[in-house]
């Protein structure tokens, strides 16, 4: 007897752990796809990844770095589809390669912010007492500063550059995640299923990592996805102020910044990377909303 | 008994879903006079759906259909929202399981009861407050003046349920639907609340639809009992004859409950027969 893949995944009585996990993922995937806005967001993010990977192919031999001063600030044409910038570099190619920079920022910020936020939040929420008080006061200190200003200070102290920009953003972005993780942890820690593991003799670390963190993860992922637009914009802001990616790196924020002076006469220089930032931010926002619907425990039967 | 208070014929409630239509209630027929009618069933039997359908409280996209649903001679079928508003709280009232969710947490108890009174009876502020106080007395709250000024969170479970009863009865409805009114209460408190309901039914000649999962309570408190299973009424009998019920489901339900008076070495388990849902 053969069953289709979909039937195997939707099976109510899975025969292995793998089938159960995949089935659960598949149900989540179907829920995202069934939600038009989330699907649009997902498609945009997948496109971003595809563009980043295939930038050399899509650029059709154009280099993001090659300068052609004779062709500076050229309007969109058959040769330069989206025009050129103040150094005669092809904006089409630079925008494509810029996806790589943006994706790097997104990736690096995610793997720094989520673990810090989760670690601080779950520890504070689960242990309580003075650990909670100390960790949360530190969090409050970070929260008290306006984010961009704090990131600016960090970026200025660390020196300009894309890696430092990412570190600066991450250092300012984790406190809300710690707050979320702490709130979730306090609810989870009081529940019967955590008491059960305590009674089984599990160590605190085991309880935190195997039982508490997986439950906080979904809200952290949702928040991260929703925040991603803001993070990209902060990165662009730092780039715009000259504290992010350094020339000649094709970073969208820096590109907008460069086009600022000529925005009235040569609008494309600033507009094209601006549109890219806008679309990607929108994509993350849409996906974040969709994920929130999918992960919402109230929607679970 | 003359004309029944409530007469229901072939009442059905169904919910369209992705996999087809679910029948929460199927072709239920019964009459209710000025008596205590118990509705017993396990979860998913449709007993709560029945109570809600009679009050027109089935949420969208649920579909309600009935051949007849007469309350004091007039049909409830096709009632508009305004018609329902005129009935609910005034002529038909409902008590829910947990008073915590039914009382407004930021308003004083007395004001809530008085407001109900003014809304439904159009009485003056002074009059309403007097009625509210006397109602609190009627549900045997020891110091009604104090309780009048309390907020819902300051009440114990039994007290809250009495306040709910007071609020529901202040408009002197003809029919009271009580959905598991005592299930959240301790046994000793439960019996006090039942005693109050019992007195009010007898003194005011009200009809009571008492929905519960507890066979002991229903058989000792009600006059007649409907046994529900899978959205159907399986049988109706006098409450005192419940021990000699005919339907195998009812018998199995009685046998499955551990009893203080009749020790059993092993409890009978229920074998569900698809025939019951024919």
């Amino acid at each position: 007897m053969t069953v289709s893949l979909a039937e195997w995944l939707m099976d109510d009585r899975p025969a292995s752990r793998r089938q159960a996990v995949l089935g659960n993922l598949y149900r989540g995937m179907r829920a995202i796809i069934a939600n038009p806005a989330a699907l649009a967001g997902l498609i945009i993010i997948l496109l971003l990844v595809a563009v980043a990977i295939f930038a050399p192919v899509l650029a059709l031999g154009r280099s993001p770095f090659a300068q052609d001063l004779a062709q500076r600030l050229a309007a969109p044409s058959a040769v330069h589809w989206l025009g050129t910038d103040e150094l005669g570099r092809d904006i089409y190619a630079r925008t494509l390669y810029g996806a790589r920079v943006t994706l790097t920022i997104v990736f690096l910020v995610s793997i720094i912010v989520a673990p810090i936020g989760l670690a601080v939040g779950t520890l504070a929420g689960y242990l309580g007492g003075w650990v909670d008080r100390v960790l949360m006061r530190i969090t409050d200190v970070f929260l008290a500063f306006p984010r961009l200003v704090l990131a600016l200070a960090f970026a200025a102290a660390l020196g300009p550059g894309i890696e430092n920009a990412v570190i600066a953003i991450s250092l300012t972005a984790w406190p809300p995640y710690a707050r979320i993780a702490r709130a979730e942890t306090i609810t989870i820690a009081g529940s019967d299923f955590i008491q059960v593991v305590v009674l089984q003799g599990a160590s605190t670390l085991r309880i935190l990592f195997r039982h508490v963190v997986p439950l906080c993860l979904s809200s952290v992922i949702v928040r991260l996805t929703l925040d991603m637009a803001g993070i990209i914009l902060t990165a662009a802001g730092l780039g715009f102020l000259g504290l992010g990616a350094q020339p000649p790196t094709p970073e969208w924020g820096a590109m907008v910044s460069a086009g600022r002076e000529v925005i009235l006469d040569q609008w494309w220089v600033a507009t094209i990377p601006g549109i890219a930032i806008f679309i990607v931010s929108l994509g993350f926002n849409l996906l974040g909303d969709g994920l929130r619907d999918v992960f919402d425990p109230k929607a679970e039967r | 008994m003359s004309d029944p208070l409530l007469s229901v014929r072939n009442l059905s409630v169904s919910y369209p879903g992705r996999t087809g239509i679910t029948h929460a209630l199927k072709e239920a027929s019964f009459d209710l006079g000025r008596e205590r009618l118990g509705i017993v069933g396990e979860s998913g039997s449709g007993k709560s759906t029945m109570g809600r359908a009679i009050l027109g409280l089935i949420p969208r996209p649920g579909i309600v259909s009935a051949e007849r649903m007469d309350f004091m001679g007039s049909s409830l079928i096709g009632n508009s929202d305004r018609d329902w508003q005129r009935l609910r709280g005034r002529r038909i009232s409902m008590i829910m399981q947990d008073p915590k969710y039914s009382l407004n947490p930021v308003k004083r108890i007395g004001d809530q009861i008085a407001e109900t009174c003014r809304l439904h009876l159009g009485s003056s502020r002074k009059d309403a407050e007097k009625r509210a106080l006397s109602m609190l007395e009627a549900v045997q709250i020891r110091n009604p003046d104090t309780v009048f000024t309390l907020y819902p969170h300051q009440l114990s479970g039994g007290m809250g349920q009495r306040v709910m009863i007071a609020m529901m009865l202040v408009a002197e409805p003809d029919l009271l639907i009580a959905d598991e009114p005592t299930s959240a209460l301790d046994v000793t408190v439960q019996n006090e609340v039942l005693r109050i309901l019992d007195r009010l039914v007898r003194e005011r000649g009200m009809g009571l639809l008492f929905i519960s999962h507890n066979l002991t309570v229903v058989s000792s408190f009600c006059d007649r009992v409907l046994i529900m299973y899978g959205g159907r009424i399986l049988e109706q009998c006098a409450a005192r004859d419940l021990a000699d019920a005919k339907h195998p489901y009812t018998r199995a339900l009685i046998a499955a409950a551990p009893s203080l008076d009749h020790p059993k070495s092993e409890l009978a388990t229920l074998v569900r027969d698809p025939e019951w849902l024919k």
Partner: protein
Amino acid sequence: MIDIADLSVTFGSGNRVVHAVRGVSLSVEEGESFGIVGESGSGKSTVLKAIAGLVPNSNTHLTVQGRPASGKRTKADRRLMQFVFQDPYASLHPRQTVDEALREPLAIHGLDDPENRIAQALSEVGLGVEHRFRYPHQLSGGQRQRVAIARALILRPPVLLLDEPTSALDVSVQAEILNLISRLKQANRLTIILVSHDLGVVAHLCNRIAIMQFGKLVEVVSAADLRSGNVTSDYTRALIEASRGFVRAVD
């Protein structure tokens, strides 16, 4: 097997101290089924949680199998007793399959051959292989409670603590679970402490029963005495009377 001397539990501090349990002393023999009944606020569940070591504020002399069990519990202490909670919807991790829930205690205690132990634990509580990889939301209330019992017994503890294990279930499902508990008790020679508000349930499963009110122990009676009403306190008598159902006023 289990001896408690003068157990008191308070919650809160300063002016807002709540005495949940006041000076309760109990002793439970090996292989016995001991019941604790009372109404809400009687402290019955708190006593059970104190025995399990779930209440931090307990000030008592508790011995299990002759060894003191107050203070910090070791892994070995934990294996002596396991707990089944009231609400089957809250006692299973929502993102773990039945298989993972049963694997966890084995992993914590480093027990060998988890595959067979899990399969055996499931069959003991009457669940089939088709349930093994399901998530809690794919199970009924009765099935979840079976999983909770299987999880408690997979470490083979000599003592099983049950906190209202059937009060969230329908009567017919309750009968199945109660039968299961008494069967498992026989097969594994368990010592059981059962907390319930339902006199019928306690009398059905236990030989000796403690009655509690306002945090104090009212009395300890045998199941036979509870059934026949051969009790000393008025409160117990009122409780028995009330649980027989409503008595109509004669008019």
